C-alpha cells in the first residue's frame, strides 16, 4: 500500500487481502447459483442491438433481489442499485449484455463436472451472471459497503454497437462514479486499466452494374480485395508505440463459378498512439481511393468505431491493489490493454479496471467454454476489490 494512507486505512486494506482465502471458501457455495444464472442468461440470445430479452431477464433478477431502481433504459441497459450504508459514493460494476452470436445460433449450454460449454459463456454470460448474483454473493460473506453499488448490464457494446449503451449511461447518470469495475468471463488474472487507441473500419468493394468486364480484364471482387489486403499488410507498423492491424472478417462471393461483384473487409487498427491510428486510417483511405481509380470499382472506407488511448498508471492504487489481490489468490496478473467498456469510462476520467472471472477456451467459437472451479476465486477477487474501493484503499492521494 502506498504511503499516503493512515495506519487505520492500511490495516483495513490489509485485512481485505488477508480475508481472501475465507472468501474463496465461502463463495464456493454460491458458485452453483452463478452457474445456473449463467446458463439462463446464455440461452437468451443477445446479439448487439437485440439485447432486450436478456435485459428483461436481468432486470427481473434485480427486482427479485429487491435492488433499488431496477430498470431498463431506452438503450436496453439494465441498472440496479445496492444501497450502501452511507451512500455518499457510487461504485459502478458493469458487464456487457450483448454477445457475438446471432439469434439463429444454438445457444444451449452443456454443463460438465469441470466446465460449461456454449457460444457466449465467457463473453459475456458469466460476467452478466455474476452481476445478476452480486447481491447474493455479498450476502453470503456478510459484506456491506458504505458506498452504493451501481450494477449495470450494458447494451450495444460490441462491434458496431461502439459502447453506445455505456456512453448513454455515462452521459445521463446524475452522480459521479468513484470507480468502475468491468466484468468479463475470462481470463482470471487479466487486469486491464488502460485503453489503447482503436479504430474499427469497414472496406467495401463493389463493381458497378455497368462495368465492362472485357475492357478491364477484371478478376472480380475477391482478387481485388486480396490485393487490397496485401497493400494493407505492406504498411510499415512501428514497434513502439505498439501498433497492430487486425483483419477480422471478410465476406465475398456467392458460388463456385460466379464472378464476385461485392466484397467487405472488416478490420481494427490498434495502437498506443492516437496519432498513429489516425495516420493508418488515412493510409487505408488512400489505398481505397487508389483501388477505385485503378479498377473502376467503388471501394469505400467507413469508420465504424473509434476509441482514444488512455487510462490509469501501472502504479495507480486501484491497479496496485488489484495485483495484490491476485497475488494472494496465487494468480499471476496479466496486464492487458483493452478496447472495451474501459475506454468509455477512461474518457470520462473514471478510474476503471476490467477483470476476468475464470479460465476458459475457444472464445468467440461455438464451443466456447469456462472452467467452473476457478469461479470462486474470481468472485473473491471481485468482492475484495469492491471492498478495497469502498474503504478508499484505491483512492489516489
Amino acid at each position, binding site marked *: 500500500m502506498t504511503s499516503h494512507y493512515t495506519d487505520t486505512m492500511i490495516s483495513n486494506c490489509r485485512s481485505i487481502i488477508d480475508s481472501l482465502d475465507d472468501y474463496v471458501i465461502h463463495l464456493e457455495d454460491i458458485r452453483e*447459483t452463478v452457474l445456473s444464472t449463467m*446458463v439462463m442468461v446464455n*440461452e437468451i440470445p443477445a446479439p448487439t442491438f437485440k439485447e432486450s430479452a436478456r435485459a428483461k431477464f436481468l432486470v427481473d433478477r434485480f427486482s427479485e433481489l429487491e435492488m433499488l431502481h431496477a430498470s431498463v433504459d431506452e438503450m436496453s441497459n439494465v441498472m440496479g442499485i445496492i444501497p450502501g450504508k452511507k451512500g455518499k459514493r457510487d461504485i459502478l460494476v458493469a458487464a456487457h449484455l450483448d454477445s457475438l452470436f446471432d439469434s439463429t445460433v444454438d445457444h444451449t449450454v452443456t454443463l460438465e*463436472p469441470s466446465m460449461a460449454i456454449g457460444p457466449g459463456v465467457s463473453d459475456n454470460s458469466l460476467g452478466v451472471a455474476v452481476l445478476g448474483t452480486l447481491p447474493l454473493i455479498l450476502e453470503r460473506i456478510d459484506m456491506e459497503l458504505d458506498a452504493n453499488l451501481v450494477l449495470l448490464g450494458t447494451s450495444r457494446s460490441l462491434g458496431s454497437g461502439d459502447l453506445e449503451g455505456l456512453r448513454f449511461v455515462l452521459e445521463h447518470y446524475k452522480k459521479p462514479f468513484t470507480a468502475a469495475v468491468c466484468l468479463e468471463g475470462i481470463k482470471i488474472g487479466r487486469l486491464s486499466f488502460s485503453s489503447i487507441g482503436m479504430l474499427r473500419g469497414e472496406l467495401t468493394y463493389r463493381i458497378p452494374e455497368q462495368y465492362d468486364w472485357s475492357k478491364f480484364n477484371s478478376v472480380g471482387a475477391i482478387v481485388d480485395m486480396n490485393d487490397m489486403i496485401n497493400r494493407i499488410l505492406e504498411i510499415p507498423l512501428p514497434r513502439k508505440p505498439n501498433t497492430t492491424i487486425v483483419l477480422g472478417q471478410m465476406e465475398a462471393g456467392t458460388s463456385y463459378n460466379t464472378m464476385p461483384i461485392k466484397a467487405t473487409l472488416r478490420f481494427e487498427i490498434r495502437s498506443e498512439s492516437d496519432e498513429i491510428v489516425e495516420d493508418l486510417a488515412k493510409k487505408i483511405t488512400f489505398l481505397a481511393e487508389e483501388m477505385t481509380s485503378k479498377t473502376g470499382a467503388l471501394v469505400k472506407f467507413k469508420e465504424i468505431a473509434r476509441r482514444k488511448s488512455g487510462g490509469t498508471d501501472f502504479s495507480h492504487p486501484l491497479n496496485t491493489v488489484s495485483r495484490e489481490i491476485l497475488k494472494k489468490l496465487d494468480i499471476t496478473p496479466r496486464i492487458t490493454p483493452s478496447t472495451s467498456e474501459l475506454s468509455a469510462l477512461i474518457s470520462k476520467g473514471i478510474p476503471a479496471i476490467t477483470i476476468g472471472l475464470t479460465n476458459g477456451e475457444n472464445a468467440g467459437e461455438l464451443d466456447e467454454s469456462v472452467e467452473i472451479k476457478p469461479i470462486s476465486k474470481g468472485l473473491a477477487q471481485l468482492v475484495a476489490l469492491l471492498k478495497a474501493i469502498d474503504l478508499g484503499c484505491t483512492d489516489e492521494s
Partner: protein
Amino acid sequence: MSPDTWINKNTYHHSAFADLKELVEEKEKTGLTISLCIPTLNEERTIGKEVVIFRSELMHRYPLLDEIAVIDSGSKDRTLEVSSSFGADTYLSADILPEEGFRKGKGENLWKAIYQLKGDIIVYIDADIKNIHPRFVYGLVGPLIKRSEVSYVKAFYDRPLAFSDSVRPSGGGRVTEILTRPLFSLFFPELTAIIQPLSGEYAVRRDVLESIPFPVGYGVETSHILDVYRTHGMKAFAQTDLDQRVHRNQETRALGKMSFGILQTFLTRLISYGTIENKQEFQTVLRQFQVRNNVYETLEYDIPEYERPPMNTIDAYRKSRGMPPLQKNSLEP
C-alpha cells in the same frame, strides 16, 4: 364436461406461477413436500444443467423442491457421475426395491421413484431437455399447490417459433395426433382436451401415483391418463403451457415402436374396463422393414408392455409409509 369448458378452467401458462416467493409461501401453508424425479439413460450432455438449475433456483433461492433425485436405468456414459457432481441424489433403478427385480424402461424408474422419494407431490421431468428452465417445475406444481382438487398436472408446449395469423393449429407431436388423440376421440372424448397427453413432464400427488399401475415401457403416460380419468374423472387433471421444449427429434421408425407400445397399453385398458372384448392374446412383436442390396428384410422388435402393479400393493412400500399390510390374495389395499 365439454373439452372447451374443461380447457378454459384447467389450462394454465407457466407465467401464472412465476412469482416463486408467493408460490413457496402457499406451499408452506399447505405443508406439502415436493420431490423431483429425473429418469435417465445416457443423458450426460443435458443432466448437469438440469440438476444445477433446479437445485440453485428451486431449492436454494426458492425452496419449492425438497428433493432432487436422478433415477437411472443403467447408463453407459457419465450420467450418474455428472449428476452427483452437481449435487443430485442418484440412484440406480435396479438398486431400488431389489426384491421386485428390475425391468429396463422409463416407467420402471418412475414407479420406483414413488418408493424412493419422500414428497407428497412427485414431479417427473425428462432429462433430454436442452432448454431447461425452472418453469418446467413451477409451472407443473403451481396448480397442485393452489388447487387441492387437482391431482395430476400435465405439461404441454405451445410457443410457435413464428406465426402471423390469429388462428393456428395446436396439439401434440406426431404420435399424439396420429394415434392417441384419435383413440381418445373414439373412446374417451373428454380426454381429447389434454393437449399433449404423451409429454414426459408432469406433477402428481402421491396418493394418486401410488394407486395406479405403471407400464415400464412406452405406455406409461397413456395408462396414467386413462387410469386417473377412470378413477377421478377430468376434475383431477390440469395442464400447463411451458412454452418451448427443445429436445432430440425422434425418427419415424422410433415413433412406430412407441406407438406399438402405447396401442398395447390402450387396448389392454379397454379390455379391462370391459369396453371391448378380445378373444386372443396380443402379439408383442413389431415388424419393420429395410432393403439391403435390393432385398427386403424384416426387422422384428419384441416390445412387451410389462406393467408394475400399483405401488400401494407392494409390502415394502406399505411398510415404509406406515400402512397396514395387505390381506393375502387381495389386490385391494
